[in-house]
């Protein structure tokens, strides 16, 4: 039984950049309410500078993460699922604060755990499915392999946990690193997920999570010259054109928002959207 006289220790929700949990450099925060309008927490309101710091961290993490063996990346993603499962009650609680019923919240958390497991298994199969040996008309060995695009900017969808996991896992499983703008009105599960990521052997900087205003942050991410790709899953319809236009500056690969039934088993599309194909030729001879 909780001691009625004991005051609960609340959590300060901060950003997740380079494996650490800094506050926004701007010192700003914004109020996150529960479903009934009651105060839940002050979340950090990230700034342009935080976007840039997060991109720097993601770029720094890219060579190491993309050079890990696929088997190792798969194990780490599976470890994320293990850590998430271990915090099941905490996530159910956070989703219930946002208005989900007990059963719905449980289903969402289970779905998020299972999604990590699903993508974990893809790590060492993607190259077999997306690569090829090409029968060219000449004495050459010619093969194509998928490689990660680089640093991916992710505008996460409103669905605060399953939606978030469904866009982050496919981006990083192939070796990309990510800068994620969390669901604006429901950012707290994203930061709690960051605590899971931080304890899953995922190298710092592979996933960076910012909370705050999408309208403020997304354009900086879209125009950043060291971001290679952009997932617009959570972008507002009226912002898509401007974000795509900004992304054209360095020819980012852009995944447009599409039908979003996060409960469905995904296809390979969210992974292949952030892959490059490298084709290597070598003469055959003695």
């Amino acid at each position, binding site marked *: 039984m909780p001691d009625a006289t004991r005051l609960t220790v609340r959590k300060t929700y901060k950003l997740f950049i380079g494996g650490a949990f800094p506050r926004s450099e701007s010192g700003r925060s914004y109020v996150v309410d529960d479903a009934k309008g009651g105060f839940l927490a002050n979340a950090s309101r990230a700034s342009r500078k935080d976007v840039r710091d997060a991109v720097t961290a993601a770029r720094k993490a890219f060579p190491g993460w993309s050079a890990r063996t696929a088997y190792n990346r798969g194990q780490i993603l599976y470890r994320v699922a293990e850590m998430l499962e271990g915090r099941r009650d905490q996530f159910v609680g956070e989703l219930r604060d946002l208005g989900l019923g007990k059963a719905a919240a449980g289903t969402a958390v289970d779905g998020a755990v299972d999604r990590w497991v699903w993508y974990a298994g893809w790590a060492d199969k993607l190259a077999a*499915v997306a690569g*090829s040996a*090409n*029968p*060219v*008309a*000449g004495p*050459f060995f*010619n093969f*194509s392999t998928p490689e990660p*695009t680089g640093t991916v900017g992710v505008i996460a969808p409103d669905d605060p946990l399953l939606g978030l996991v469904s866009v982050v896992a496919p981006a990083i499983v192939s070796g990309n690193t990510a800068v994620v703008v969390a669901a604006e009105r429901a950012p707290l599960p994203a930061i709690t997920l960051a605590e899971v990521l931080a304890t899953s052997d995922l190298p710092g900087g592979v996933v960076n999570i910012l909370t705050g205003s999408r309208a403020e942050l997304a354009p900086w991410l879209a125009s950043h010259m060291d971001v*290679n790709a952009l997932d617009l899953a959570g972008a507002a319809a009226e912002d*898509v*054109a*401007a*974000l*795509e*236009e900004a*992304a*054209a*500056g*360095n*020819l980012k*690969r852009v995944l447009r928002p599409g039908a979003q039934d996060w409960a469905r088993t995904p*296809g390979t*599309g969210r992974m292949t959207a952030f892959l*490059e*194909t*490298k*084709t*290597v*030729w*070598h*003469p055959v001879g003695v």
Partner: protein
Amino acid sequence: MVFEYAPAPESASIVDIRPSYGLFVGGEFVDGHGEPFKTVNPADETALAEIARADAADVDRAVRAARTAFEKVWGPMPGAERAKYLYRIARLIQERARELAVLESIDNGKPIRESRDVDVPLVAAHFFYHAGWADKLEHAGFGPDPRPLGVAGQVIPWNFPLLMLAWKIAPALACGNTVVLKPAETTPLTALLFADICRQADLPPGVVNIVTGAGETGRALVEHDGVDKVAFTGSTAVGRGIARSVAGTRKRLTLELGGKAANIVYADAALDQAVEGIVNGIFFNQGHVCCAGSRLLVQEPVAEELVERLKTRMGTLRVGDPLDKNTDIGAINSAAQLARIGELARAGEDEGAERWSPPCELPGRGFWFAPTLFTGVAQSHRIAQEEIFGPVLSVLTFRTPEEAVAKANNTPYGLSAGIWTEKGSQILWTAQRLRAGVVWANTFNKFDPASPFGGYKESGFGREGGRHGLEGYLDA
């Protein structure tokens, strides 16, 4: 020893260039409503023909013809029947191969040896390859029932006029799309001959439409609301503009843009083979190649020797009449391109690199540029950063493999790269680290319809060729 050569010109009598050409819309040649323009033989600056210029209304008619053909004929047609049309086109290209090759060399300036032995055979191969996909798309890994996108608006460059047409049209048609294609302003003739091939093949009207013109015509095409898919090959600057213009639309986009490929020669490489590969890498097609090996990175111990051998080899290159079967380097495609190459070469000198060309006599008329080598090039020099798109090679050196990779990747481009070493593990180590879509190891500038081609970073996105190339034309 240098052999003397007697002239060995390919006869131009096989081609019949008409005084003027219209647009190919809905299966007919029709008048354009813009101001007509002339296409010029870059080898002697004579006008070859007057070409119709499509204005926005002409483009609109072409897109509507393509839409009708997509909805009524080509979309509903079983894949096996589409396949047979594409096989038929492949065969017609083979039948008319010499005519296409000569016309390409006349309009573009490339040596007949290249148009005859590389471009046109690859064009036929591209149609033959994609014909086979047309009724097998459900096995391509893009879902059980991949659908065509609709009308493809395609804009292609002047460096491989017919080959780029094939790279665009063959996969589009195989996947069930119809196309409106704009060839480059300076090289429209083989595309218009291809229109005649479509007619000989009885290809249903409107499945392939060719609109000629310059940048404005291309803009009208890619910005047209009735276009479902935009495919562009050309400069990164124009590609960026196209990416902006399709932002916020439903149009799908693939871009194949510029490059500044590093060709890395390790100290243990077979140097004579490497020299041949370097020459092929930068002087093939006058260096008008987006994937040209324009930055030579040589490991220091062999740099001096390699450059000497390279100079000796460059001294044997024959520059001149594109129709001469002995010619290695033909004409620069246009006065504008010649001016750009000259400007960048001067920048190389001004920035302190050392310029060298073999003694070589250039013809008095036409657009020509001698094969050129720059040594003492720093990474910051414009000739090490900007795409020259001409027969100009920049030589840089490196000490360690790590330095080679860092220098190779130090560019916003990422289209292609070359590696020369006898050590297999070093090839794979290097290939893994190069951020480029095509890596040629102990070879260079090889192409095949079964081999995906396309860039990383600002060299564009999407692939052309192979299974991967189908994705850009399917609603998967």
